């Protein structure tokens, strides 16, 4: 009998398929993965400690850097958490603008996810389509906050400025093109036999395991559980919109990938309704220059970010800076399941699984 040794293969932290500084150490038995050890922390900036030395407003830009591919979502979550802590009401117009910005961010993030999966699996052309369409969203972000990638346009109490001329037509034309974009992604990749073969049955995540490991977001919904915080615990004005929660039942890589494409369509529907319903009026509440929540008060606020449940736990001591701030990062928690879904698979499945779990390292390493 041939003897085989256990050996390790290191993927990352400097490797295009790891989506940032992720270092996965694969313990291999021949071609079969025995275990994966995930090493994090390559982009750790100690954002939680930094928060203790910044005022509530000063901290806003730091949150944008958590999930830099869906920049408005972490900012929205943080601002809402602080508003909850202080009991600040946000004007209607700002609520609608926020929903539009949040959903655009979700689409932009999913476009990166699905197109980066393309390049990870050798379908380089797939990358181009997602990036091309994402560019239009970046242009819209530039119109509002002046920043493309790391926008801090959403602020405590509302948004930084009113939307400029040309914003609504640009968003409208984008929304109208979304079904076409989805057809293109599907036509180019989903229907491709080689593509499907690389993804089908790879990295199966059962619903039981998903819940045990705290997996949320599209990864959970691909395992057949229709749990979306926009529906389960709507923040802001999400309860006003009609949308479906796309789910798949297999829990494999192909399902995770397809759920994201479907969600782009649903986000488009929400944006359409938000554009229709947006009233005129104030874009921000008058917020005091120095924010001092009651001493001892604390909040855990969670939103459905592009990656899953993004939560902020903030404790106040009555001063103008948080006493403690903790970010419940969905990417951090979702990555925990990577070894579980890789075990027993072959090496190239590791790359597929990293891609379809769609972690963002700015958030997981904080």
């Amino acid at each position, binding site marked *: 009998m041939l003897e085989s040794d256990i050996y390790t293969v290191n993927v990352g932290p400097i490797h295009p398929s790891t989506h940032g500084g992720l270092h996965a150490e694969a313990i291999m038995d021949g071609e079969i993965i025995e275990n994966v050890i995930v090493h994090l*922390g390559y982009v750790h900036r100690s954002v939680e400690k930094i928060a203790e030395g910044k005022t509530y407003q000063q901290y806003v830009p730091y949150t944008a850097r958590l999930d830099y591919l869906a920049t408005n979502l972490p900012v929205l979550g943080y601002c809402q958490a602080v508003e909850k802590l202080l009991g600040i009401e946000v004007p209607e117009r700002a609520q609608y603008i926020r929903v539009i910005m949040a959903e655009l961010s979700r689409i932009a993030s999913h476009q990166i996810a699905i197109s980066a999966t393309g390049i990870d699996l050798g379908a380089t052309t797939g990358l181009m389509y997602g990036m091309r369409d994402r560019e239009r969203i970046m242009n819209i972000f530039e119109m509002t906050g002046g920043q493309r990638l790391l926008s801090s346009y959403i602020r405590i109490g509302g948004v930084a400025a009113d939307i400029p001329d040309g914003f609504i037509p640009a968003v409208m034309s984008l929304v109208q093109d979304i079904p076409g974009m989805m057809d293109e992604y599907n036509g180019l990749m989903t229907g491709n036999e080689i593509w499907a073969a690389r993804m089908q049955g790879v990295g199966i995540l059962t619903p039981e395991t998903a819940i045990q490991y705290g997996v949320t977001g599209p990864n959970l919904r691909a395992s057949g559980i229709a749990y979306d915080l926009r529906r389960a615990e709507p923040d802001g004005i999400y309860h006003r919109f009609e949308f479906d929660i796309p789910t798949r039942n297999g829990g494999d890589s192909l399902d995770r990938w397809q759920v994201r494409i479907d969600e782009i369509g649903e986000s488009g529907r929400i944006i359409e309704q938000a554009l229709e319903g947006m009233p005129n009026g104030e874009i921000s509440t008058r917020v005091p220059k120095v924010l001092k929540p009651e001493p001892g008060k604390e909040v855990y606020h969670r939103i459905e970010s592009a990656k899953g449940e993004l939560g902020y736990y903030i404790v106040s001591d009555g001063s103008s800076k948080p006493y*403690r701030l903790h970010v419940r990062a969905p990417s951090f928690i979702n990555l925990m399941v990577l070894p579980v879904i890789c075990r027993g698979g072959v090496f190239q499945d590791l790359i597929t699984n990293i891609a379809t779990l769609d972690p963002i390292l700015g958030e997981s390493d904080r």
Partner: protein
Amino acid sequence: MQEFNLELMIKELEVLMGDKLRIGSDQFFAVLNIESNMLTVLMTKLRDEYGFNHLANLSSVDYGEEFELVYHLYSIPDNKKLLVKTRVPRTSAELDSLITIWPTADWQEREVYDLMGIKFKAHPNLIRVLLPEDFEGHPLRKDFVMGGRS
């Protein structure tokens, strides 16, 4: 299945846990303050009998003499929520790991250990998760001295 009733659950738990459990609440959550040696018993009950299957958030706060551990529990898909808190003294910052109840506690406990230096008994792999292995100290402790590298 019976309709979930938070007050009823709290009453049942009060009878069971006696003075180990203090009930509180804030604007957003019902809060169960439990003594740290009873944490595993309470959490097992919450998961198995009351359906709190989603440990959303596990974190800790430094209050000087004591550390407070916070656990935000939810249930999928019912969407009921609960906050469980426990305290450990700074001089012996150690408590039970919840990894056997919710595997998701794994890295979250490692993070608390890494950044705040609280040890979890029976955690199979309690090593730093975000900071380098040779890092000294636990930065989220309030007495951590911050300074640049020389």
